[in-house]
């Protein structure tokens, strides 16, 4: 296909960034890598050197190793939350869009209700039952994702249900469920993938936010958000402690956003070309 290069570039840059982060996450788990969570108080606040490329933090952990290992928490939370959102939100959206009745109203209003709670509030509410930790972050962001996917699915499939080939399909004796699986879902798959990519980026940002205020990933598991929290009093002395995890967050979010935008233009060329 002959497409303009502007979003081709976005697609490849986004993919490259995401692939690098996945490689970094895998690399940080390799057995020959030294454990970045090891505390060596004697070596604290070292400037970058050959041994510690980005130096060490206030309790002597290797900053590069911590940041690399932090990728795992970010990706796990983002992927887990999107799985929850897609797994529950998409079926809800399709069911609600199939027919106009009280049931679909209930589903969509319930989603509006959940949508009113930011992930942060959900995380605080869940804190008592689930406790802080990676599962709390996944659940809180995941719950926030449900109405996002439910709405996208609802809006896209609502117009498809009214198309004539759906009526023709009904006349052949098919029921709602099989029409949803055969006709509707394949046609909205692209939109869901785009939304998933965007939500992955937002999930990384939300994980950093929750961990920053202590509602997300708990020690000793490294997380970019908590690294920021721990370094905030040292910003004047060693700015690298803030800049490195901060840069990692920005880059990861940028990667998913670029990919999401490029994919959505691919699927709906009207957005990109006049």
């Amino acid at each position, binding site marked *: 296909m002959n497409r*303009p290069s502007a979003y081709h570039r976005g697609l490849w840059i986004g993919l490259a960034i995401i692939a690098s982060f996945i490689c970094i996450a895998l690399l940080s788990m390799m057995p020959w890598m030294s454990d970045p969570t090891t505390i060596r108080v004697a070596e604290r606040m070292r400037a970058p050197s050959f041994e510690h490329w980005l130096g060490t933090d206030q309790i002597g952990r290797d900053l590069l190793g911590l940041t690399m290992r932090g990728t795992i928490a970010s990706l796990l939370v983002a992927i887990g939350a999107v799985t929850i959102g897609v797994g529950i939100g998409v079926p809800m959206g399709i069911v609600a869009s199939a027919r106009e009745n009280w049931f679909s109203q209930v589903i969509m209003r319930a989603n509006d209700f959940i949508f009113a709670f930011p992930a942060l509030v959900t995380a605080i509410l869940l804190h008592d039952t689930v406790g802080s930790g990676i599962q709390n972050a996944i659940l809180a962001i995941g719950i926030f994702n449900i109405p996002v996917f439910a709405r996208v699915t609802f809006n896209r499939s609502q117009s498809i249900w009214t198309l*004539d*080939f759906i*009526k*023709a399909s009904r*006349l*052949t*004796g098919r029921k709602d469920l099989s029409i949803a699986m055969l006709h509707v879902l394949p*046609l909205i798959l692209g939109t869901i993938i785009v939304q998933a990519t965007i939500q992955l980026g937002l999930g990384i940002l939300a994980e950093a936010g929750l961990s920053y205020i202590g509602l997300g990933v708990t020690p000793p598991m490294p997380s970019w958000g908590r690294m920021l929290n721990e370094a905030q009093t040292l910003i004047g002395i060693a700015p690298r402690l803030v800049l490195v995890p901060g840069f990692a967050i920005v880059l990861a979010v940028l990667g998913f956003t670029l990919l999401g935008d490029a994919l959505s233009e691919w699927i709906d060329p009207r957005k990109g*070309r006049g």
Partner: protein
Amino acid sequence: MALLDITDLSLTLDSRRLIDGLNLILEPGKIVGLVGASGSGKSLTARSIIGLPPRGAEITGTIMLDGLSLLSLGDKKLGQIRGRDIGIVFQDSAAAFDPLMTIGDHVAEPLRWHLGLDRKTARIEAQRALNRAEFPNDIDAFSRYPHEISGGQRQRAMIAAAITLSPKLLLADEPTTALDVTTEAAILNLLRKLAREDGMAILLVSHDLPAIATIADHIALIETGKIIESVGIQDITPHRSPRLAGLFASIELQDSRAEIKSGEVALRGHSLSFSYRDKRAVENVSFVLHRGECLGIVGQSGSGKSTLARIIAGLSKPCAGRIEAIKLPCPVQMVFQDPSGSLNPRWTLGQSIAEPLHREQLAPATRTQRIVQALQEVGLDASFAGRYPHEVSGGQAQRAAIARAIIIKPDIVVLDEPVSALDISVRSQILDLLDGLRRYHGLAMVFITHDLGVARRVADHLLVMKDGKVIEQGPTAKVLAEPKHAYTRSLVAASPSLNHKVFTPRASEG
């Protein structure tokens, strides 16, 4: 001197030549109809004139508007010319309006943008333009939003917006395609008035030849990006313009309907009613459909004919009344208006055609055989089974939709405007096909249409609907020859394809 002079215009997109050396001249006060099938390049030509070709298109040639070369102008200059010197009317008035702006503000916008008028003066001028476009006086355009008025009124508002600045050229791209016959006739009259009284030149782009023929001074037939015939409306003769004359002849409707057979009753509707949100869409409608008969249901948009079609097909349950049918071996099948919407874009034609077979446990070989057989019956060869809807023409897609409807050999097929979205040349073929299938299979058909010409050609019996009620019914020839109800008479009078005087005598002069 010509107002618009297009010389040797070519447009290439993705290394495909979509407009190929096109020449066209338009004089002040004249209406030129640019007629062609979809994909012939007629809309691209219109878009090239207003400087909005698809991105990445390469254009050569010249387009002169009143001595100004449009193709060499920059975006800013073109922006000034659009709206001021060239007024534009689109097909889809619903999509052309911003839903959050009142109708009046839409009409006033070009005044404020191009002339920098203040709000009050602009409103006065806008109201004047609305009056010229015969927008109903009793509607306050400045408090109404686009969704609150009818399609015909929106189209008038769009014309008003296009003529506020008294442009020299009005470009109308399928301005009446989405409208029903009476509204269509009114809009066409309005356009003719603008050309005659204001000396506006109008380029009318359409696939609807009868509509164009009623008002155009000159018709240009475009095919694969080339003008193949360009003649004055008086000169359309088989000798001077064989293709156009041929197209007119194919609209000519032969009154060759066989006598109505008093066969077995296939379906009987007893005082059917249907309400939607307190609005009566169908009210107390009764009818009888015999085996092998074609029942035509005619009426304007909003008359309830499509709702009735859905009830007959069993897609909607009537609120009152009942449908009595002979024991049908399989459900009623349906063919829809828009072939592109009636086929799943991700499915091959073969998959779509075979969908009704899903309840029969068939061996793959038998299934393929049934698909090929259905394709052959609608005049498509087996290779079409593997193609996707976007790879075939509208007519071919409609044939596939018909194949899907007949593959399980139903007794009754409901057709909801099956040819309205098709080009005239294809229309006739599809009608022939349906006629053949009806005779061959003894199929009973319910044929919904707003086009009396089409109804006359296919229907044995006619049901005329208005505001959900049947106001007249009887044998087609009788209803059309001696309409009893005033409304039916107005429909007959407004139907361009029935009104032979519009073009027939001219076509046969030579």
